[in-house]
């Protein structure tokens, strides 16, 4: 399907088999953050999140999968586009407000130029059968990219307060509500999130009181 032979280095991802990878060098300046987010946003066809996970956890190693998952979760419950919220939280974590501005600016500026250039020429663009075919293909691939990211992030659940079986049950409940029953996300978050929060708080309190009976 894709020309595998041209990719250098080991093709099998050790992180997906051997578990969590360590975070290495954090970014040192706003410029580095801006460039990183510009580059990852420009690769984000059909969704930026899979690229962000790849780049931040595996290529640049600014975050572990558990840290990425934590910031993404916070970004999902507050209003606004998930990936934009994630960029603000990641940038802030490393460099405060400057870092947040650099990350969000990088995420939006480059792609804005691209999308507005397309909008300026969209009459020919939208009618083009080659473009329409490519968009169909990218859409199928992007579903897979998002699912692949989700499966990778499950390794970030290791050592979670909730434990494996309750995590799986809560996940299944949330999936069923949103994907099968088409319940609005906000309601799904409340219906499943509140019990999950309570369960985690209970585990935490029990651990804090000197462990389980």
């Amino acid at each position, binding site marked *: 399907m894709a020309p595998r032979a041209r990719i250098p280095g080991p093709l099998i991802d050790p992180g997906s088999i051997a578990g969590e990878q360590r975070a290495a060098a954090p970014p040192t300046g706003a410029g580095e953050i801006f460039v990183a987010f510009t580059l990852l946003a420009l*690769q984000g066809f059909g969704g930026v999140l899979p690229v962000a996970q790849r780049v931040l956890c595996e290529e640049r190693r600014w975050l572990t999968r558990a840290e990425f998952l934590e910031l993404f979760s916070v970004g999902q419950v507050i209003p606004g586009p998930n990936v934009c919220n994630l960029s603000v939280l990641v940038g802030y974590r490393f460099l405060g407000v400057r870092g947040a501005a650099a990350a969000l600016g990088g995420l939006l500026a480059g792609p804005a130029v691209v999308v507005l250039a397309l909008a300026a020429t969209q009459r020919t663009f939208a009618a083009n059968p080659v473009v329409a*075919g490519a968009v169909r293909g990218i859409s199928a691939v992007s579903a897979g990219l998002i699912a692949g990211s989700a499966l990778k992030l499950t390794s970030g*659940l290791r050592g979670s307060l909730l434990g494996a079986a309750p995590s799986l049950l809560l996940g299944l409940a949330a999936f069923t509500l949103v994907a099968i029953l088409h319940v609005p996300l906000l309601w799904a978050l409340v219906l499943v999130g509140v019990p999950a929060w309570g369960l985690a708080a209970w585990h935490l309190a029990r651990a804090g009181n000197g462990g389980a009976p």
Partner: protein
Amino acid sequence: MTVVAWLSLVGNVMAVSILSVGGALTVAPELSRLLVDRLRLMDSASFATSVALAQAAPGPNALYSAVLGYQIAGLSGAVILLVAFMAPSTAVALAAARFGAARGHHRALVALKAGLAPISIAMLVATAWILASQTPRPAPILVALVTTLLAWRTRLHLLWMVGAGALLGILGVL
């Protein structure tokens, strides 16, 4: 458009944006009611084209707000609508980041983050599911499944997968 009309538009877009829990596109119907039905700034076909364009182009889907602004008033419209759309949620995200930095180790917050983690993963799987079920035919589903495995288990660069998908789409396989 007059200054007053712009201010009212910006205020309305900001109010819609604050409701966009779960992604930029969740409020697309709301924005369509505002821009197409109420203010009559564009027709529903150009609204749909703007959304499709932002989804096809690289970058966050939130950029459809910039394309909508561009349709209304060119480049300045694009900047105004993008800022109006992004400002409220960015302010909340910054406040959350600050709060997390100061109180991140508070027990209730640690529990909240731990509780949300598996749900966030489930939401991603749900997103993939909904996206894939828009084309319920064997070929696109197979492509999505193969991509899932490659993205999960290998280091193959994501752009190879995107390129291969685009090529299959152009060849009419999907």
